[in-house]
C-alpha cells in the first residue's frame, strides 16, 4: 500500500472557528496522506475536528470557519489555492462526499433522480436521456429498484436514503469519496448492510475512501489504515491491524476500550475520564495530559512530536520518547 500513488495529501492543515471569545483551533496542524484505492479511517470523539477536516478538504466550511493554513494536495494540485471555477470542476468529479445525516442530505422537494442527474449533467456533457439511464444504473448498483427513481426523499426509508446519497457520490466515478459518519443515523442491521455495500462497491470500483467515524470497531474492520484525532491534532496513525493489536497512544487505548491493567492490580478503567478541552485555549504541552493516566511532568509543558514506531505506526506521545518515556517500564511494547 505504501508505495502506491497518493490521491490526497493533507499537510499541516489548520482550521479556526472565529468567535466572540476568541478563535477555536478546531484543526491544528493535521497531516496525512491517502493512497489510491485505500480505505483511510479517521476517528475521534465529537468535537475532535474530524468532520471539520472532511469539510475543509473540499472547502465547504461556512462563515465562522476559516482555513488558517496548510495544503490539501489532490494529485499534486493544492485544492486550497484553486479558483472558484476549478474548485467547482474538481468537486464531486474527483472527490465526492457522503454526508453525516442521510435524512438531511437530500433536497426534500426534488425527485431523487433529479438530484443524481443534476450532478452528472453539471460535470459531463450528456443528454437528459443518458443521464437518466445512468441514474437508473447507479440506483441499481446500490440496491435500489430503479423504478423508485421518481420518488421524493421523504418516501424512502433512512437506509434507502443513505443508499441514494452513496449512489450520488458514485455518479462521476471519483477517485476519492469522503464519508462522514455515513451510518451513524441508522440502526445496526441497516448499518451492517450499508457497510457491506460500501465495501463491495469499493472493491469493484477501486475508489479511495476517507472514512470518518467515532466507532472504532467499525473502523478496525473496514479500514486499511487508521488515524486518531484528539482536540484538533492527529495523535496516532497506523495500519488497522496494528492499531487494533498495539494501540500506542493512551487516548487510542481509551477509544478502543482496551486499557490493560498496568500493574495487574484491580485497575478498572471505563473509557476515558474527563471531557475534551476547550480549544480556544488548548492545554499546554500534550493536549491529552490532563486526562491521561500516564501523564508525566514533560507532558504538561512540551507538545509531543510524531514518533515512528515502525510498521507504519506513528504516535505523538512522550511515553515512546527514547530517554523520556516510561513506555518500556509500564506500557507493553
Amino acid at each position, binding site marked *: 500500500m505504501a508505495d502506491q500513488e497518493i490521491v490526497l495529501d493533507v499537510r499541516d492543515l489548520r482550521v479556526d472557528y472565529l468567535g466572540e471569545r476568541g478563535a477555536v483551533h478546531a484543526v491544528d496542524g493535521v497531516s496525512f496522506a491517502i493512497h489510491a484505492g485505500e480505505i483511510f479511517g479517521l476517528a475521534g470523539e465529537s468535537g475532535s475536528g474530524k468532520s471539520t477536516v472532511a*469539510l475543509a478538504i*473540499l472547502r*465547504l466550511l*461556512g462563515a465562522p470557519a476559516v482555513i488558517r493554513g496548510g495544503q490539501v494536495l489532490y494529485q499534486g494540485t493544492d485544492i486550497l489555492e484553486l479558483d472558484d471555477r476549478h*474548485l*467547482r*470542476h*474538481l*468537486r*464531486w*468529479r474527483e472527490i*465526492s*462526499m457522503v*454526508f*453525516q*445525516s442521510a435524512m*438531511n*442530505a*437530500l*433536497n*426534500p*422537494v*426534488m*425527485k431523487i433522480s433529479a438530484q443524481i442527474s*443534476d*450532478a452528472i449533467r*453539471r*460535470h459531463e456533457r450528456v443528454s437528459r436521456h443518458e443521464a437518466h439511464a445512468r441514474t437508473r444504473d447507479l440506483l441499481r448498483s446500490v440496491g435500489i429498484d430503479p423504478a423508485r427513481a421518481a420518488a*421524493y426523499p*421523504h*418516501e424512502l426509508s433512512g437506509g434507502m436514503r443513505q443508499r441514494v*446519497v452513496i449512489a*450520488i457520490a458514485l455518479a462521476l466515478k471519483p477517485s476519492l469519496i469522503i464519508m462522514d459518519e455515513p451510518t451513524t443515523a441508522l440502526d445496526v442491521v441497516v448499518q451492517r448492510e450499508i457497510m457491506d455495500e460500501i465495501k463491495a462497491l469499493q472493491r469493484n470500483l477501486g475508489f479511495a475512501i476517507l472514512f470518518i467515524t467515532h466507532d472504532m470497531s467499525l473502523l478496525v474492520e473496514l479500514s486499511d489504515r487508521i488515524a486518531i484525532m484528539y482536540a484538533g491534532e492527529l495523535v496516532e496513525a497506523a495500519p488497522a491491524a496494528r492499531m487494533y493489536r498495539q494501540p500506542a497512544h493512551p487516548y487510542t487505548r481509551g477509544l478502543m476500550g482496551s486499557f490493560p491493567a498496568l500493574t495487574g492490580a484491580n485497575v478498572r478503567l471505563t473509557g476515558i475520564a474527563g471531557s475534551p478541552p476547550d480549544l480556544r485555549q488548548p492545554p499546554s504541552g500534550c493536549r491529552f495530559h490532563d486526562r491521561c493516566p500516564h501523564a508525566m511532568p514533560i507532558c504538561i509543558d512540551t507538545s509531543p512530536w510524531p514518533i515512528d514506531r515502525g510498521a507504519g505506526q506513528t504516535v505523538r506521545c512522550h511515553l515512546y520518547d527514547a530517554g523520556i518515556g516510561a513506555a518500556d517500564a509500564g506500557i507493553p511494547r
Partner: protein
Amino acid sequence: MPFLVRRLLFYAVAAWAAITVNFFLPRTMPGDPATSLFAKQAGLLQPAQLESLKKAYGLTGGSMWSQYLTYLANVGRGRFGVSLSQFPVSVTTVIEQGLVWTLILGLAGLFLGFAIGTSLGALCAWRRGGLLDSVLPTLFMFIGSFPYFFLALLAVYVLGVKTGWFPQSYAYEFGLTQGWNLPFVRSVLWHLVLPVTSIVLVSLGHWLMSMRNTMIAVLAEDYLTMAEAKGLAQWQILLRYAARNAILPSVTALGLGIGFIFSGQILTEIVFAYPGLGYLLFQSVTSLDYPLMQALFLMITLGVLLANFLIDFVYVLIDPRTRGAQAQRV
C-alpha cells in the same frame, strides 16, 4: 380518499357553516332586524325596500326551517336582495362591479409585493451581511412601520396632487368606454400605479424578512452543503435548492393574502376612492345598507375559504411531502 377531495369537502362544510351563521345571527337579536330597521328609518325606506331587507335576512315568512331553506336557495343562486343605498339595483350587481376592481387592485399589489419582496429576501440571505442585506431589510421594515393611511395620503399628495404625475382617485378616467380598448386599459393601469405602489411598499418588508429568515435557515441544511459539494452552479443552488425550499412559508402567506384581498384593502380603496369591495363595504356601513353589508361579509368569508383551498392545491404542487404524508395521517 384523495387529498384534494378531502380538502374540498372540508371547505364545503366550512362554507355551509359560514352561510348558516350568517342566516341565524340576525335571528338571535330580539325582534325582527328588518322591521326594526324599517321603524328606525321611519319614512325613509319604502315598503319595497323593506321586502328586500327581509329577503336579505331570509325573513320570508313561514317556519324557521323553510326560511332557512329559502335563504340557502337564494344564496345558491346568488340572490342577496336589493341594495338599499343603490336602490333598486340588486346586491349581486353592485358586488360584481366592485369585485372586479378589488381583484385587479388586490392581486396586482399582492403578487408584485410577493415577487419583489421574496426575490430581494432570497438575495439578502444569499449574500448575508452584504450591502443589499445591510440596507434593504431595515429600509423596508422602516417604511412598513408607517401607518398605512399616512403613506397612502403622502403618495396621493406628492405624486398625485403636487406633481400631478399620477391620477389621485378612482379606477379609470370617466368618459372612456369600458372594455378591452387601449385608452381604457391604459387608464386603468395608470390609475393602478399609486394604490398598488402603496400596497407593495408597505408589504415589501414583510415578504422580504420572511423569505430572508427562512432561507438563512435553509442555507444551513445539509442538502445545501451537498449541493455545494456537487459543484453545482451558483444559480442552481440558489434557485433549486435554497429558494425552492425557503419559499414554502411565503406561499402560505400569499394564499392567506388572497383571502384578505376581499377585506384587507379597505383603507387603500378609501384613500384612493377606488371602487372595489372595501370601498363598497365602507359605503354600505355608513349608509346602513344591510343587504349589501350582509352579502359582503359572506363574500369575505367565502373569499378566505377559497384562497385557503387554492393554497392547499398549490402547496401539493410545490411540496411533495404534503402529498403522501397527509393522505396517510387521516
